[in-house]
């Protein structure tokens, strides 16, 4: 692989020629072994309040439930209020809830082109920006939050962290290595590519509905 060796050699020669002092105290090995946190803004808010505020600003809608059994009712409430279809695809973790009592048809599988509503959980959420963090995996299909026009996401209250740095801390502690994709989702898909006019539903979901779960 000559390109690789040539490029690395040129980088070394260039850095030698430029002869600039490193501004950091920590070495490369230290930085990789225990990544330092850079200065943070003042985070003088209650994480849940901030998460809701930012979620609202990013055009998500919000609801809260005390227990997971209440989820089918909360989903029905949202769907009927917005006159949306009652046929869903979901992550496996939700399939055993009492859906049929609410008249909802639900399947536990990844989404395909024609699915209209997708229900997912979230690994955690970031208060600072109102962001859901989803990890792709066997039990957490990436397509469910992507292809349907409506994405409903459940987030446990205890999993709302302050910053992205906190989210990485959580992931480093709980997940052996990063999954194929870490998706940070902040509200519905949008674009302003035509005359700076904001339009929702560019390629991803038109609507994101976040349900905060107490447990």
């Amino acid at each position: 692989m000559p390109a690789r060796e040539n490029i690395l050699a040129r980088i070394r020669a260039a850095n030698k020629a430029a002869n600039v002092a490193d501004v950091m105290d920590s070495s490369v090995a230290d930085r990789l072994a225990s990544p330092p946190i850079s200065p943070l803004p003042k985070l003088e808010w209650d994480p849940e309040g901030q998460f809701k505020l930012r979620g609202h600003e990013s055009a998500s809608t919000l609801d809260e439930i005390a227990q997971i059994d209440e989820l089918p009712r909360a989903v029905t409430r949202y769907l009927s209020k917005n006159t949306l279809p009652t046929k869903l695809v979901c992550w496996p973790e939700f399939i055993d809830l009492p859906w049929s009592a609410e008249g909802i048809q639900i399947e536990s599988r990844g989404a395909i082109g024609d699915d209209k509503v997708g229900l997912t959980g979230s690994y955690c959420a970031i208060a600072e920006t109102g962001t859901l963090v989803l990890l792709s995996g066997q039990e957490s299909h990436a397509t469910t939050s992507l292809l349907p026009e409506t994405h409903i996401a459940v987030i446990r209250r205890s999993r709302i962290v302050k910053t992205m740095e906190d989210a990485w801390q959580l992931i480093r502690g709980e997940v052996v290595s990063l999954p194929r994709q870490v998706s940070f989702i902040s509200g519905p898909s949008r674009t302003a590519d035509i005359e700076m006019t904001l339009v929702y539903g560019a390629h991803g979901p038109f609507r994101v509905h976040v349900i905060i779960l107490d447990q």
Partner: protein
Amino acid sequence: MELTSHQFKSVSSAKLKDVKLQKALYKAKDGFVVPRAKVVAELDNFEEIRQAAADVRDHGLAHLDVYLEEWEKQAQAAGTIVHWAESYEELNALVVKIAQDNQVKKIIKSKSMVGEETGLNRYVEGHGIEVKETDLGEYIIQQAGEHPSHIIAPATHKSKDDVADLFAEKHQRPRLDDAEKLTHEAREILRPHFLDADMGITGANFMIAETGSTVILTNEGNGRMTTTMPRVHVAISSIEKCIPTLDDFALMMRLLPRSATGQVISNYVSMTTGPKRAKDNDGPGEFHVIILDVGRTRVLGSDLRDALRCIRCGACMNHCPVYQNVGGHAYGWVYPGPIGSVLTPAYNGIENAIDLPNAATLCNQCGVVCPVKIPLPDLMRKLREKQYERNLKSSAEKWSLRLWAYLALRPKLYSIVTRIMARVGKLLGGDSRRINHLLFGGKDWTRHRDLPAPRGRTFRDIYLNRNKTTNR
């Protein structure tokens, strides 16, 4: 992409007279500048964060070889196939080879400026493979057969009416009249392509050494589609995009969306590490990353190396009075605005983009808004000096500078000459107090505007007089 920066003067003259473009630029300016100011003000310690980001970028560049090797090690451990390319041709050929090895007929693409540099789409299409751009702005200009005029808003030079006409013609559907309907028509047209494309190509805003990941930011969700739906994913990036850790990425994320679109975060931040895992039911079976070095290492070893800190937010162009008036196409290459005025000559040779470093008032708006503190006016000044040293300046400019130096070193003569000029200027200005036709090198200056005439007294006269008054 073909370099046309040598036509800067003639193209920008035409752009200044283009009424439709002027309207679009006026709209875009407020659309970027105002929201950015608002979200930057929300950060109480923006300057501290900005300095930290500049330091992290400098540190990363100072050890770029080590971080790239670490990135590669981690990426390969996750199953990513890593390639390196030293020329545009090499990168393009790698993409085509990956496509051919996988019997790819259709590619969906999420916006990549590296891809614009290499002229990837045309090359791939030349090998009989279909490429669909999916970012709405990028889709619009692909349909129109044009190049992007802005690094994050590629179709910002087009009006809604332009897009309406274009879509009606290309989609063979009734003409639509508002941005929402046009956006949703593009969604409907592109959706089947997302579902049946064989390969996805994306850029990478960052590569993270700690985990061997690549990251892209989009608002539309086309980045997630492109990285998730096809069976092969190729990310193309360049060496300077590599940053050390996930926490360093978190730091950049406080700055990039704020500086780019005035958002606290982009809608979708998608971090990819390797292909689909054995038990995953979605994601590509193969994930390739191609790392490019064209021009980068040359800049790294030069006094322009600060430019490599760039995180491609576009704030410098959004705030540049020159860009705001002539738009992106006048710059004649991939990167417009102040960063383009540095990167274009730095990557393509300073003799091939003489006008760009001079097309700046050095007002330092770009330097003030740059989230990684690139001293853009200083870099443009350095390029001007190099032009002078390499004898690339016009003889008129050289002689004027020599004349200026001669006068500036002789205070008495300077005083006499400026007094004469101030009086002549006053006479020339007449009642309107404006000069609308300068001679010689000044001709270009007054082609599009008037020069406010001097009022008859020099600054030194006024200053001396003022001193006398205050002393009394």
